[in-house]
């Protein structure tokens, strides 16, 4: 899981994706943001344009937008972007959709950012709209914000819908009912278990994959881990012990390979089927490779 709004050219994203594909990872995911916080400097690329390129530059792995805010694009554009990338990739696109949350990027670029209740309503309508757009035969949907009345395809093969968010009730319930994959930010195993239970309850017989996304701070040895912890703590201006506690409390894999494996095993026990390892710094692919490899148990 990459966050190229923090910086990262197409070629850097491609290098990360190619490595991941060569290593046999299941998916390359990226966010859909246009700014990082209030800092406009990094070279934020467009998620769909990048995934369109990666659809042609990779061959096997799944490609995921995790997640696209419904505030950026009309659902007609989301549907057409997704269907087109799906065809170009041979059905490898996972389309994550969410309400959007980063008010600053909307303000800076003048993109309307309604209040949360309206965003949620738009989000639910957008899901209905996408269902109608992707259905076999005529698609019809008539909502408060969006409407569709078209007899046209495409009906993308292999496209999966990902619903993500950190909520404990509404999001897992909606994901259970509507998504092919439910993704939430990494958290302690007990909390993950309860979110997944809510999702499974709503899903009934529907097949929905439960996945998490989040960082990891690991090293080959305790010394290497400690070094990385100290570097990162210094950057954040807190003590290494405080940072470690924060990570451990958040359910984030830390430490040497053995210790990280315990955290991953607990998540798996709780029902998590896939971890997207979040990696921020695309200038440092070596550390990304090592981190992902350790989290995978390699």
């Amino acid at each position, binding site marked *: 899981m990459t966050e190229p709004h923090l910086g990262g050219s197409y070629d850097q994203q491609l290098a990360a994706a190619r490595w991941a594909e060569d290593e046999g990872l299941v998916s390359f995911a990226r966010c859909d943001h246009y700014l990082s916080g209030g800092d406009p400097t990094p070279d934020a690329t467009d998620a769909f344009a990048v995934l369109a*390129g990666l659809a042609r530059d990779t061959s096997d792995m799944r490609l995921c937008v995790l997640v696209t805010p419904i505030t950026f694009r009309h659902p007609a554009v989301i549907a057409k972007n997704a269907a087109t990338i799906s065809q170009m990739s041979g059905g490898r696109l996972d389309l994550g959709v969410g309400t959007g949350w980063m008010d600053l990027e909307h303000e800076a670029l003048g993109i309307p950012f309604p209040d949360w209740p309206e965003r949620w309503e738009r989000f639910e309508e957008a899901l209905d709209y996408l269902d109608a757009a992707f259905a076999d035969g005529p698609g019809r949907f008539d909502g408060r914000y969006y409407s569709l009345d078209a007899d046209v395809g495409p009906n993308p093969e292999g496209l999966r819908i990902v619903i993500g968010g950190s909520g404990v009730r509404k999001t897992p319930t909606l994901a259970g009912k509507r998504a092919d994959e439910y993704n939430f930010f990494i958290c302690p195993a007990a909390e993950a278990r309860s979110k997944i239970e809510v999702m499974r309850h709503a899903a009934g017989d529907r097949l929905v994959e439960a996945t998490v996304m989040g960082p990891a701070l690991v090293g080959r040895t305790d010394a290497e881990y400690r070094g990385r912890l100290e570097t990162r703590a210094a950057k954040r201006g807190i003590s290494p012990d405080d940072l470690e506690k924060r990570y451990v409390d958040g359910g984030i894999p830390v430490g040497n390979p053995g210790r990280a494996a315990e955290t991953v095993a607990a998540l798996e026990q709780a029902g998590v089927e896939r971890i997207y390892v979040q990696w921020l710094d695309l200038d440092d692919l070596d550390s990304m490779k090592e981190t992902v490899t350790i989290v995978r148990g390699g």
Partner: protein
Amino acid sequence: MEFGIQTRGDWSYVLAAARWAEDRGDLAAIGLPDHYLQRGEEPEKPAWDHLVHLAGLAVETSRIGLASIVSPVTFRHPAVLYKMAVTIDEISGGRFTLGLGAGWLEEEFTKFGLPFPDLKTRMAIYEEAMAYLRAAITPGARGFDGKHFQLDEFDPQPHPIGLRLMGGGVGGPKARRITALYADEYNLYARKPEEYRAVRESTRDLAVQLGRDPEEISWSSAGPGTAARKESDYRRLMEGMAELTGLSVDHIESRWEERGYPHGSGEKPAEMIAALEEAGCQRFYPQMFLSEDDPADFDLVLDALMGR
């Protein structure tokens, strides 16, 4: 005269066309239109997202120019257009031209629930979107404060390598003004040379009045790609056009004659192109949309337009 082509279809078709165009070696660009509905006989056929196709073509080609001709401005917020455009620009190494227009195919807006205000409002939105995009892609903290769109005063990144903005429209006063202010290229649909010349000259005059060097604006045109050296080939292509549109060949020909669209057999297409060039047009994109087209037909059309 430089030549490009304008085409559309599903990914395999668009990819084959782009590879053919690049391999031909004498074409400046491949352009895709932006429609969410197919027109003609088969409206139920899927329509795709042209910017996503262009991003894929940026990967799959290495030399040829890539153009959006043109995107209806109410499909996407200009922030999204900016970000998609700079990303395609980056992937292609600066080969992308983003075209904008007011949109006209009302059915695609109503069917998909996309906004389609009256023409005056659409033109106002088009003008603001072009101003927003120009501010966003020009290095420096420019900002833009419009009625429909606002961009804070900061320097958005990445800066494009070679991204150009193309204006669309039928050459009315508002479209000329938008071109004079913001466009790097104006794509004015094919018409009689004297009409083309009049729009071009008045736009250039306006640019001077508005303090812009008119030489910064390049002039292009698009029109139906139905021409061949041999009369029999031309007839076959026209019959395909008649089938596509449901109109008779005679009807289509008389309309194209009246409007000045380059077409025909023998020397005629190249002569019509020469007259358009004389009127100031620098690049022509024949539109070749037939899904049955194979590149051999594309060659027939281009060779006839080029006078080969």
